[in-house]
């Protein structure tokens, strides 16, 4: 685990370096295990993103980085996931105390995104400027990306707004999922003991409750259920700027401490007890949405964010969607919500025009 100073040091060292025919230009983001640079393809001059693993990373981070490359290549046909262009491992020259030392660096070359969704919502002013049709489109894009991943046998396991990338293609903006460092091939057997999965990984404020209560599983349906929760949490983020877990469970450190104590004693708690806490937060979130989509959003959030993982996998509560796969009914609902919002917008424009005409006459 690198400190901020170490990461700043690597940022300095790597900026301007050439890796596999790409020149690292500007550091776009600093993550816990790596850095993302805007880079130039030296042959074509094209703009590209290069994700570099910090050379000081431990074996687990290296394995995750390598796994990400494999899974991104596997998902390269999916338009809901960031495109993997190239990758590898190269030596760069590092000067230390006047001595030049070759340093091996692992990197992925990825399509360049215009922005990530968190950039649109971290500031409450820009979030409020983002109209609800756009927010639901973003949500729909993430659902589509996750659905494609699941169909390809991959779970994302780290879904949040900062991992949702926006690509401007012509006049349209498409969402693509990025950062598959924690993704899991659902068709391969677990690579760790169950202890390695009970807690899940990453930012705790986004973690599904089963991970905070150390009840995560290592079966495919466990990973899928966690992704569903991530989708619900993304919709909450789009509405409030905060992840669902943080809003519903409060002090996540205290939760984890209690869970660790229970775990040490070989005991487990019933996650269904959290229902009322989640219900309260969902009510808060729905309250912020336009009236025309409140009912659908309530159904979606109640289903996706059920604190009991198995409940998230239940079929659609809508009769006509009962035969479709879980994420397909979510996509259909998102489409309905978008249409409703478009109708609202049309109505509003019509009313405005009417008012203008009345004022003019």
């Amino acid at each position, binding site marked *: 685990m690198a400190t901020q100073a170490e990461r700043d040091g690597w940022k300095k060292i790597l900026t301007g370096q050439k890796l596999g025919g790409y020149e690292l230009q500007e550091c776009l983001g600093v993550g816990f295990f790596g850095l993302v640079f805007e880079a130039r393809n030296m042959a074509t001059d094209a703009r590209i993103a290069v994700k570099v693993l910090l050379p000081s990373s431990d074996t687990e981070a290296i394995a995750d980085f390598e796994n990400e490359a494999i899974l991104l290549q596997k998902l390269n046909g999916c338009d809901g996931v960031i495109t993997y262009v190239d990758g590898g491992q190269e030596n760069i020259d590092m000067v230390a105390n006047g001595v030049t030392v070759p340093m091996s660096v692992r990197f992925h070359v990825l399509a360049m995104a215009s922005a990530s969704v968190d950039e649109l919502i971290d500031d409450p002013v820009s*979030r409020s400027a983002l109209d609800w049709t756009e927010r639901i489109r973003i949500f729909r894009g993430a659902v589509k990306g996750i659905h494609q991943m699941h169909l390809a046998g991959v779970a994302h396991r780290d879904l949040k707004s900062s991992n949702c990338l926006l690509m401007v293609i012509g006049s349209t903006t498409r969402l693509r999922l990025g950062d598959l460092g924690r993704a899991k091939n659902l068709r391969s057997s677990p690579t760790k003991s169950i202890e390695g999965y009970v807690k899940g990984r990453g930012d705790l404020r986004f973690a599904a409750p089963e991970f905070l209560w150390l009840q995560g599983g290592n079966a495919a349906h466990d990973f899928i259920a966690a992704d569903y929760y991530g989708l619900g949490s993304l919709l909450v983020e789009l509405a409030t700027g905060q992840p669902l877990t943080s809003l519903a469970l409060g*002090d996540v450190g205290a939760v984890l401490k209690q869970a660790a104590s229970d775990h040490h004693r070989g005991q487990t708690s*019933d996650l269904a*007890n959290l229902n009322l806490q989640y219900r*309260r937060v969902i009510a808060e979130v729905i309250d912020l949405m336009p009236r025309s989509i409140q009912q659908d959003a309530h159904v979606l959030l109640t289903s996706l964010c059920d604190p009991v993982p198995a409940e998230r996998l239940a079929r659609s509560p809508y009769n006509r969607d009962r035969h479709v796969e879980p994420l397909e009914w979510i996509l259909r609902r998102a489409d309905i919500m978008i249409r409703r919002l478009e109708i609202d917008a049309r109505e509003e424009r019509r009313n405005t025009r009417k008012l203008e005409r009345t004022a003019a006459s």
Partner: protein
Amino acid sequence: MSSLGQLEVIRADKSFDSETAGPTLPGSDRSRSGSKARNTHQASNTHGLDVQIANSLAETLDAAISKATYARSSTTLTALAASYEALGAIEESVATATEALQLSVISARERGFLIDPVSARLAIEILIRAGRTDEGTLFATSLPLVGQVRLSVGAMLASVGRLEEAHRFVDDSDAQGRDAVCGFLQIMEGNNYAAISSLRAALRTAPDDADSALNLSIAFWRVGAKKKAISTALQATRSAPGRQDVGLHYLELLIAEGDFERFDREIASLARIDVAPPARLFILRARATLARGDIDTGVKLLERASEAAKAENDDQAFAEVQSNLIRIRAWNGKIDRELAVTRLLKLHVQFPTSAVVLVSLAQVANRRRHTTAMQNALELARGTMSDARIAFVEHQIASLEGNNELAAEKAVEWYTLEPEDPNASIAAVVALGIGQERWEEAAEFAREALLKYPNEPDQINNAAYVLAMVGDAEEAIKLLTPHAKGRVVLTATLGLAYLASNQIHTGMKLYREAANMAEQKKDDSRSLMTAYQALVVRQLGLLNASDLTALTAMSLPPVALPDDWRERSEFLRLQTLAADKGYEWPLTL
């Protein structure tokens, strides 16, 4: 009651925490308690898990710092405050949440509305969790909160006792769940009937709301609607079968109602689903067992509760169990009272604010010299005690000090607050009647006691004593006669009743019979009985009306006071009364 006018409460099921489940804020954080734990596999690599947790906490903070650096907004700062809180960095968390709220206040002033309401709610919650209630309340009242968020903040303020401010947020709300919060607020204020109405409305909208069902059950219980309380508690357990607080509340009500059959059924059903029994469940099982008279099994269950409480780091439960073990051992005669008091005082030093330890001490202490320590302990624990418990402890202290006036005042207060406690009833009758000669008032309590406990010898004895003194000697004789045979205290009181009905010979004969029975017990009750007889003869005016020589001949011969009479409440009560009336002490004929 082991002797006349002595309230013996050591045996009573008084020093258990009688309200395991308090009112619950609807949809509140249930991370630390409230969930039934089930046994699962024992964790194998706990160190590896601790490392993973530490890494995740560091990563959480790192991500939040990075975002707040990139965009310093109320959203990112609140996220950072939450991350600091998760790591236990409370000062940083408070400072960051404050900065986030300040940004919200400025923005709301400029725009006229709150642009980031949910972050504001989260930041206020962080301040309140950190104990910064004043700051949290100030921000809450400064921000133009609306809708669900306004209701959530109101509920949060109610949960930390800011009831007046909470009303401003809840009363005019039309948000979903208002009835549930309103009911919680009303129950917190002791407005139980209003709470019942609100909570019923809440349950009509959301029948599976276990928080409201629990609160409704508590409200029903508080207004004396016990059957409804139990059926609502049952509804709560069925809505949330995994909720420990709800389950314990239901079991507690079953114990209070003496419905041990249902209690056993519920325990069996918990065992079937392999619920790992927490300390509180062992305590309830111990209480049910003790109430059925199986002391040995009860003690064993308390010992298991003690181990569980230690493992759960539940100090309150540990103190409760330990204090009760000491009390029961003293009551059982396994340890003497003095040793029990010493141990309870030691426990009090360990848990100075524990109400349960103090109540146990008040039950066990039986000497005047214990009162200073009890008084000091009361000052430390007062803030954590219910009014009824404070009144009970103050009554015990006043009685041990021989302060009859204060003992009567506190006994009445105790009875008013806990009219269902049979000991409170005895205390009121004894302290008002025998201690204060306020016979008419005492007779009212006595008649209530006879209605509630028509077959309880202790209640009958005290009631008959008071009725005889208030002029209803015939009624007293009728009450006592079926119960007096073979019972020292009741026979003596029957003697008193005959004296009051001017049947001096029969009265004195019964006193002598009682004294002979007392003689066989080889304790001090004969000395106390002699003093009582001398007092009663004076109170009934027989000393002037009767032939003094004959009266003296028929009365009990004088017996010396025990060496430690100055330490004992039963003698001190009489001495104080004798001093007030100008009678010589010791009282003799």
